[in-house]
């Protein structure tokens, strides 16, 4: 069969051709101790004066992203979805110095501003995809590029997705030009219960990963429940091989993390001999102290309910369930726990735990007052997230659920920005926020519409009318079709 999709469907399932699975099969089974903590580190009390505490670096691979220059720009006479639920027909958006300046019915152009007539066009915030593997599973999807699952142990909280990101992935450019995606979270895969840290990127090509990093975005911890971890490790004849094994290994790890956090909190407050460092435990400590957000791959309603209790048991919060194909069955529980669901529009039936997927999932969550949003998990789907929301709207309306187009845009930008902890910076056209803006050549909920211009931090980085504003990654340079419309 032709291979196109390489999201969860292929990566997680297809034992014949999924690129990551091939990696899993050939990967040596390495015995990695479960984030081992040194035996309990207590020392006899001494009269010595304690050394002052030294905090380990929280941001050792800091963002070097810099916004590219842009002209003050006024788009007027367009339909505006401001991303916070407001629609302005015949409206205007003004941005300058990389920030949104104003949104309104009519705005005056400052001297020297570029003025764009938006007649028949729509302006929206740039799309934020909370679930992507671009860079970690880049194109071409050859074995040498399979960098998204450290599937050698079920707990790999020590790995960071950013250390796998290949900034030359042609997928970044497609997501920008065809998809209007301006921000995305790159997650480790779902082979492991704790797959490692995620990273949030601005969708701007750079020579280094650091130069794509979204300044100040919190880290995430990718967790996974259900079929993938138990299949991957069960097939290696080791724990976990069942759903109860999944939870057991998670709990054992959280219990250690709680102890690690206690030791390090004490040391960083009081000083003395530093406890032994454990890179994976650093991440879990960050989760327990609320600095790192849990992004939890999970399909089934009953499993999500167990995970919510586990989070309570150890004192952390699940920021969002990803895929959450059965979230519609527990909309009330998700609402009560303040946990979001990041979902596809209509994927279903590709594995047992996706068997009950329905096209109304997102709409039912939204109607129930739960936090919900769209996501891609796919280098093709990320190019059409606006269309995925359009499909949800269609399913919803035919089921009698009324949601306005303007309100639905929250599922594409402000919702995911909030679940990434970057809603103060991006996700809506609020004055002062980053000017991450898309001009669409029609209604973005129509199949006949495409991005015409995309700005990131006010810099015009894609223009359908200007071939020079079309990114070509190093990999594609000089290859057949280099610089073509894609």
């Amino acid at each position, binding site marked *: 069969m032709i291979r196109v999709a390489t999201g969860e469907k292929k990566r997680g399932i297809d034992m014949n051709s999924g690129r990551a699975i091939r990696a899993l099969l050939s990967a040596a089974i390495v015995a990695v101790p479960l984030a081992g903590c040194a035996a309990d580190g207590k020392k006899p009390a001494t009269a010595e004066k304690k050394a002052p505490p030294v905090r380990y670096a929280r941001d050792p691979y800091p963002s070097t992203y810099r916004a590219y220059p842009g002209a003050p720009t006024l788009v007027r006479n367009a339909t505006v979805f401001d991303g916070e639920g407001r629609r302005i027909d015949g409206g205007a958006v003004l941005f300058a110095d990389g920030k949104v300046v104003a949104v309104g019915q009519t705005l005056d152009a400052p001297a020297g501003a570029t003025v764009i007539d938006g007649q028949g066009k729509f302006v929206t915030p740039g799309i934020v995809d909370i679930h992507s593997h671009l860079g970690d599973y880049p*194109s*071409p999807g050859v074995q040498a590029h399979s960098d998204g699952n450290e599937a050698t142990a079920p707990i790999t909280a020590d790995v960071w997705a950013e250390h796998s990101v290949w900034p030359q992935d042609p997928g970044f450019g497609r997501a920008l030009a065809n998809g209007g995606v301006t921000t995305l979270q790159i997650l480790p895969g779902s082979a492991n219960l704790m797959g490692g840290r995620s990273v949030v990127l601005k969708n701007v090509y750079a020579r280094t990963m650091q130069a794509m990093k979204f300044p100040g975005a919190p880290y995430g911890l990718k967790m996974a429940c259900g079929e993938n971890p138990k299949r991957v490790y069960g097939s290696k004849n080791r724990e976990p091989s069942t759903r109860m094994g999944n939870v057991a290994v998670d709990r054992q790890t959280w219990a250690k993390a709680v102890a690690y956090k206690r030791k390090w909190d004490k040391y960083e407050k009081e000083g003395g001999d530093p406890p032994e460092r454990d890179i994976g435990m650093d991440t879990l400590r960050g989760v327990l102290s609320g600095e790192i957000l849990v992004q939890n791959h999970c399909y089934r309603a009953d499993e999500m309910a167990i995970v919510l209790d586990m989070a309570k048991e150890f004192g952390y919060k699940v920021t969002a369930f990803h895929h959450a194909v059965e979230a519609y069955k527990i909309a009330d529980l998700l609402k009560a726990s303040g946990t979001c669901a990041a979902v596809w529009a209509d994927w279903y039936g*590709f594995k047992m735990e996706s068997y009950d997927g329905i096209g109304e999932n997102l709409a039912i969550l939204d109607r*129930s007052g739960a936090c919900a949003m769209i996501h891609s998990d796919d280098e093709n789907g990320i190019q059409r997230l606006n269309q995925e929301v359009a499909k949800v*709207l269609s399913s919803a309306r035919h089921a009698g659920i009324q949601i306005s187009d303007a309100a639905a845009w929250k599922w594409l930008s402000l919702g995911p920005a909030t679940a990434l902890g970057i809603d103060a910076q991006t996700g809506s056209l609020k004055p002062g926020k980053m000017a991450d803006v898309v001009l669409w050549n029609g209604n973005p909920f129509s199949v006949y519409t495409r991005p015409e211009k995309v700005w990131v931090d006010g810099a015009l980085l894609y223009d*359908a009318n200007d071939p020079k504003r079309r990114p070509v990654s190093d990999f594609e340079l000089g290859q057949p079709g280099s610089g073509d*419309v*894609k």
Partner: protein
Amino acid sequence: MTRALFLLATMLATPAAAQTVAITGGTVAIGDGSAPIEGGTVVIANGRIVAAGRGVAVPAGAQIVDATGKWVSPGVVSAITDLSLVDADGVQESNDAGARNSPFKAGIDVSLGVNPAAVKVANERLGGVTRALVAPNAGGSIFAGQGAVIDLGADPDAVTRPRAFQYVELGEEGGKLAGGSRPAAHALLRDAFAQAQDYRRNPAAFDGRSRDALVLRADADALLRVIDGQVPLLVHVERAADIRNVLALTRDYPKLKLVLVGATEGWLVAKEIATARVPVIAAALADLPANFENLAATESNVGRMRAAGVPVALASTGASGGDHVLRQFAGNLVAIARIPGATGLDWGQALASITSAPAEAIGMGGEIGSLRTGRRADVVLWDGDPLELSSVPVATWIDGQPQPMRSRQSELRDRYLTSTEGALPKAYERR
């Protein structure tokens, strides 16, 4: 639920079989590449299209379906799918798409794996899909086996044409399956063809039953039909060089009826494909260099091949949301026609790429895929433009039979529109 569906279909079938239906007043899209016709009429009788278009007379006694404000089109034909072969792809026990460990290769007849009661069939029917080109997955050989054409009707009789085509891998995947290289895949193909011809010349002397025979008798039978041009040979390749090598096969096997599947780089060799009169079933929106064989991938591939005169149908590959997303794919090809430098399709061509074009690619355009007179009456009444994301089918006929408009997905939706339990557990809530 399955039995209930079949009962319903049976009840509907008896009176409806002879019933003449006239769908009037809608925007009629024939599916043959022509532009939609406002205020058209579609007449169905005896399971076939009697007429469709403007000024079509409504026969006396016909059941009238008012389509004012709606659209009428042929049902979508899903090309290259495992629909009806699997319940859930990743659940091996439920998956009859591939047979990696079977000694049989080209001889595998996928129609025997078709399950009309698989829940996806009804789900996808509700998305406007009425027929499918069901293909096996290649597993143990470059030859996947013989594909079938099915309908998605709510009845037990799903197979329209068994053994409708042979499917073979000759690109990167083919190389892998053949032992490591494309040349090995071509050597394997030619040797299998040669053995099939040996079998024809002297069946008694043919070693088609021993454990280590590369070609078994069933395989040889299937391959002879390919060599003789009785069934099309669908060849999955992507890169331009591979496409040229496939087109060259007809020098040695002049009767081959080739169909290219995939052909991401087809636009680079569009003239050659057109000259060879070979149709293509392409992934509409494959625009990434997913592998080294897709380097020139662009969403303009379909439009550029079509502009060069190649008949192109869309493949449902990559449709994780189900086969119904084909119409989204088609709509996108209309969208890119407005992008400077891109080549898309006009609306009529786009609809044809998911209706008549897949049917014609395997020589069944006279039977399915359009509303032209005499075709099987696979008709969908939509509440809007069938390629637009906001539209859904409001009525569907397959072989002229009205279809139930519910599926397991609608049952789940209705049970959980409100997530909390009522007086009894959710397990007691059903229609």
